[in-house]
């Protein structure tokens, strides 16, 4: 059973603080994805775990034992690089054999192990080729194969799908997920693509500027984001954010520009009354904004700015007062720029954030 414990990890490069007191744990057999924008510190974390980077402070333990002092070779982990880093002068077979030779595995055992892995990844016909002769997708599989032959305690992956074209990436996502379940292995995976993270992870750890924002299942992260950053980063299209204040007299949230009101339940009122704050940000996902043609009580008036027909759904950008809201509608919805179109908010499915701290309130 391989668990990973990262405790209070900090690392700076010159004046840049890459990691700031980061603590998180990876469960055995889990597919954990470290998600964040570029420069968030995800690759640095991964490299510290692999031993390619030394943290300034903090502890890393695997399977209960500290691994801080160990060289990369001694940690028994596999690393899949974003650029694959396949040894250019070696054949595919040799690339996969290289790590086994370091362990002085006997030739027959080595051959059968390599052929097993090659069959599983469907690269058996490529074994005698050189990396330069392979396509991006094939190189990817070879990099995976090289990681798999060692049967390591943990797989560390640094944005391995980024260099693939879109279709291949979608295919590989499903395949990686299946592979992980088949092997029963622990995957510690880094990416900046939130769709990738959502589709593959058992849990997602969101990182921004070296600080952990939230660590939860994909569904929880999507429906109950812990702060403004997470809410804005996960989900496509981006969540709608509207500035507002709490009006106790109206028992509702009121937009800064007075264009809308969101009535609150007694429980919600209670929570808000106790947390006195100046301003709030209302977060509504596009699918929870309903466009309405006829004006009626509760319908907020607006004007169509742009209509984006995406095929399986359509996005309508609607101007409300000084703000812009995106609504997700079925592909059959028809509207023109400039038309008057009102919206209704879903009262049950919204998030409320403290404007200054960004933390979730409701």
């Amino acid at each position: 059973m391989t668990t990973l414990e990262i405790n209070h990890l900090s690392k700076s490069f010159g004046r840049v603080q890459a990691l700031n007191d980061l603590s998180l744990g990876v469960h055995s057999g889990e597919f954990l994805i470290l998600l964040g924008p570029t420069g968030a510190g995800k690759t640095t974390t991964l490299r510290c775990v692999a031993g390619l980077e030394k943290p300034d402070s903090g502890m890393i333990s695997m399977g209960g034992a500290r691994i801080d002092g160990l060289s990369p070779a001694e940690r028994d982990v596999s690393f899949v690089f974003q650029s694959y880093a396949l040894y250019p002068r070696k054949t595919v077979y040799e690339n996969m054999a290289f790590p086994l030779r370091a362990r002085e595995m006997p030739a027959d055992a080595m051959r059968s192990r390599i052929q097993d892995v090659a069959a599983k990844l469907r690269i058996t016909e490529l074994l005698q080729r050189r990396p330069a002769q392979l396509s991006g997708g094939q190189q990817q599989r070879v990099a995976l194969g090289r990681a798999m032959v060692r049967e390591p305690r943990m797989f560390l992956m640094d944005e391995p799908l980024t260099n693939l074209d879109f279709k291949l990436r979608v295919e590989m996502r499903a395949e990686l997920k299946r592979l992980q379940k088949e092997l029963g292995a622990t995957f510690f995976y880094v990416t900046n693509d939130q769709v990738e993270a959502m589709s593959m992870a058992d849990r997602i750890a969101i990182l921004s500027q070296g600080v952990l924002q939230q660590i939860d299942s994909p569904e929880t992260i999507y429906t109950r984001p812990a702060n403004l950053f997470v809410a804005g980063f996960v989900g496509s299209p981006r969540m709608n954010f509207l500035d507002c204040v709490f009006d106790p007299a109206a028992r509702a949230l009121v937009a800064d520009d007075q264009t809308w009101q969101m009535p609150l339940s007694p429980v919600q009122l209670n929570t808000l009354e106790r947390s006195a704050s100046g301003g709030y940000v209302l977060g509504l996902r596009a699918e929870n904004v309903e466009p309405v043609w006829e004006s009626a009580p509760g319908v907020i008036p607006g004007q169509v700015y742009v209509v984006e027909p995406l095929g399986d759904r359509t996005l309508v950008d609607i101007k409300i007062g000084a703000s812009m809201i995106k609504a997700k509608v079925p592909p059959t919805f028809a509207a023109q720029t400039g038309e008057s179109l009102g919206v209704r908010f879903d009262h049950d499915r919204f998030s409320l954030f403290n404007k200054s701290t960004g933390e979730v309130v409701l």
Partner: protein
Amino acid sequence: MAEVRLINVNKKFETAWTRRRATGESAGVLAVNQLNLTIQDGEFLVLLGPSGCGKTTTLRMIAGLETATTGQIMIGDREVNQLPPGDRDIAFVFQFYALYPHLSVIDNITFPLRAQKLPPDEIKRRVERVARLLRIDHILKRRPNRLPSGEQQRVALGRAIVRQPQVFLMDEPLTNLDASLRAEMRVELKHLQQELGTTMVYVTHDQTEAMSMSHRIAVMNLGVLQQVGTPLEIYNRPQTLFVANFIGSPPMNLIPARLHDGRQIASEDGPLRLDLNGHRLQADSAQDGDRKVLLGVRSEDMHLADETDAADVSGVVTVREPLGDETIYQVETEAGALLVKTPPRIVRQPGDRVGLTIDRRRIHLFDRATEHSLLV
């Protein structure tokens, strides 16, 4: 504002004579193959395709940065094949912005106007209008390389707009922006083009961009035009297998099948049977006998049945991808691995047995040999 017409345009890139002798390669690459395309006045047309499909070459030919090997290019009512780029009254926005690093933002924008020798107050008027439109009035004095990419992008756009050309040409201008900025700029660009009303020819490999912004999309592959149509036309009735595969995420499910007597569809493997009711076959397709086809069903047109008995085909869930606002299931059936897109409230786990039904109104049919759509 003008119409752009490409008539029988071909572009061949010659391999150097010395290289041909050395390696025995053929005489060259046909980057653009018999392209016939009319871009209407005031239209936002997107040239969409994978890298190497000829879309950038086509754009550069319209601009005059490449010369067509054969064929005519018309802008408005002028044939422009022999005209240098500067005389064609077009504006080009490059993928890497190509802003003059030694000039401030405002100088970058006025640079093309000075070449046109416009009077100074006209220049001032145009610049102010553009700066306001693109919300860059607060950075006019700054140098471009210190600005974030979103603002650099808008300066590049400003430099193009201020010239008030007949046609805008854009080469993947949003590719270098991060995801959220890209989504924002898509909306802005679309709105801007609607306001200005100028003809826009836009190149991208991103099908979301194409669908979201264009009036019409021209899909290209290996130098050949596959299909031209509005986003919904292309999405709902792709004419070739390539277009069907390229547009739509996740990719369309394609099930090998046989078309019997022009009416019944039976999958090669498994119990899937459909009648071709409510659809019309193309006029020239033979009606009798068996025909090898590919049945295309988009993942959102495949549904999880309530009971396994009522299903068109059944199988086992292998992968579950929760994307937040929808979930994608990969189901291993006798007809192959199929992708199903469902609302998030429906939950199945890997290992569950499920039945799938197909929305009869939204199927696609392709001839396996010609890869063309058989339906109208």
